[in-house]
């Protein structure tokens, strides 16, 4: 019965509204942005040339890659530690781990960034406490710099890094671990030589998600960086709203999409997308 005329009509009718909506409200305006990057302020490749030569843009790109790399390592490591307990812990440990992962996950990025401001700012909890016990006399600068950005972004991304790891750890055959232990391998050795290699696809998936998210991250760096450690996304915002240079903002956007697309294509050559989620 599949593939008859009425079936194809039915499929088309049901699928058309969403496809039309996204073509009109997403694909078409994206082509418009691409057009901006080639036509504003003057037609040609001027904006792309500027991307390659402008020192400010270059330094922002390098900073973004550096922060994204650090955040990826921090988030995946931290996520790994808590996922082990979420997946393999006792029932009580599982519930507690799930709570600690899901509550931050569902809370808005603004609230979480604000929480870090409350902790890290000059008159925040950490500085107040350290001063009250006489450990420091002047407040430490923990926010409005790269440190604050890395802390806030890692906090935001850990729950996202957890999910691919959890699915890799769930599909792992427990008997292999028990066999290793039964043959006299220590906990540490079992973990590093059996457990970690068997969750490789989860680690790759989790690192990919974290890295890609970090590259285009806007809110947390803008709040915790305080305008001092600007990342690509904030640079796009500034180019469009503060020093109106729509062409450059559009060109950076296009480069970002191409870069992320290439990165994902590269990773998917080695790992099947289905293994990641």
């Amino acid at each position, binding site marked *: 019965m599949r593939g008859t005329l009425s079936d*194809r009509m*039915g*499929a*088309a*009718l*049901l*699928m058309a*509204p*969403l*496809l039309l*909506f*996204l073509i009109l*409200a*997403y694909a078409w*305006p*994206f082509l*418009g*942005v691409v057009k901006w990057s080639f036509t504003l302020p003057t037609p040609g490749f001027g904006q792309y040339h500027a991307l390659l030569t402008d020192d400010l843009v270059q330094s922002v790109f390098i900073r973004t890659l550096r922060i994204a790399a650090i955040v990826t390592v921090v988030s995946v490591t*931290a*996520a790994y*530690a*808590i996922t082990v*307990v979420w997946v*393999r*812990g*006792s029932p009580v440990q599982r519930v507690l*781990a799930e*709570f600690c992962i899901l*509550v*931050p996950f*569902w*809370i*808005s990025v*603004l*609230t*979480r*960034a*604000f929480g*870090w*401001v*409350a*902790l890290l*700012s000059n*008159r*925040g*909890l950490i500085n107040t406490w350290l001063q009250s016990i006489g450990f420091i006399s002047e407040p430490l600068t923990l926010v409005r710099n790269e440190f604050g950005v890395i802390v806030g972004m890692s*906090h935001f991304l*850990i*729950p996202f890094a957890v999910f691919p790891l959890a699915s890799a750890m769930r599909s792992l055959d427990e008997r292999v671990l*028990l066999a290793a*232990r039964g043959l006299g391998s220590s906990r540490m050795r079992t973990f590093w030589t059996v457990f970690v290699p068997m969750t490789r696809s989860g680690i790759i998936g989790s690192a990919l998600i974290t890295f*890609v998210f970090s*590259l*285009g*991250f*806007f809110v947390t760096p*803008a709040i915790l960086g305080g305008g001092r450690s600007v990342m690509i996304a904030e640079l796009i*915002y500034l180019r469009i709203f503060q020093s109106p240079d729509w062409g450059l903002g*559009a060109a950076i956007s296009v480069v970002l999409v191409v870069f992320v697309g290439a990165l*994902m294509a590269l990773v998917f050559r080695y790992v099947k997308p289905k293994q990641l989620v």
Partner: protein
Amino acid sequence: MPTYRPGPVSLALAVLVALFLLMPLLAVIPVSLTPSRMLTMPTGELSLRHYRSLIEDPRWLDSILLSLRIGVVSSALSTVLALTFSLGVWMFQPRFTAALVGFVLLPMVVPPVVSAVTLYFLLTSVSGISSFFGYDTWLGVAMAHSVMTVPFATVLMLVSLSQLDRRIDLAARGLGASVWERTTRVIMPNIKFGIVTAALLSFVLSWEEIGVTLFITSVNAITLPRLMWMGLRDNIDPAIAALSVILIIITVLVLAVRSVITRRQAAP
């Protein structure tokens, strides 16, 4: 049968990560009770003045109502669009399904800031045609939010359809049910949990959306996150701490209720 449980080192590391995850959420509680106008730790006395200012200051109330309205409209739009699309995919399994689904998921994969620039382009272009449906209008924001949330709704629908037994639908079809009857009487009742979850997730994502909203609003369509953003960037207003505490409590309650419901569903 023995099971492989995490050892003491794993547990200790996990506790550290858990503390890191919860710390900023707990930190806003004392700050929200400060009697000062500034973002400081309360020294001695506590005050609820920042909670009161949430109710008394019309700006907060207006933006809460606006966010609710935008959330409901955009969630309804993305749920309906995602549902019809997923039903088409599931019932007819058309050719090029993978490519079509991939296209629908783009707004979820593309860096949000690029989607924001794209939607900024869209709404500023539309502004020339219509004054209540473009840049800085609530309808424009609702539509933009739908673009961003519809991939998530679609994923949830496709997942819950994939768990549905095809033979139920085949039986209905064999007994002569039309596409409409199969959809409304057979398929939808079986995935109603998925539909509700998709609607809820779309609402929550719209309610807290800020990345795109920043690009497409300026003075009129000030949603709640937009107002929080202004308070965070310029001069940090402790009312944000009070609001954050309320949002955190709501989240914890909703998650608790949800886990009770899921557990009941799992063990009928």
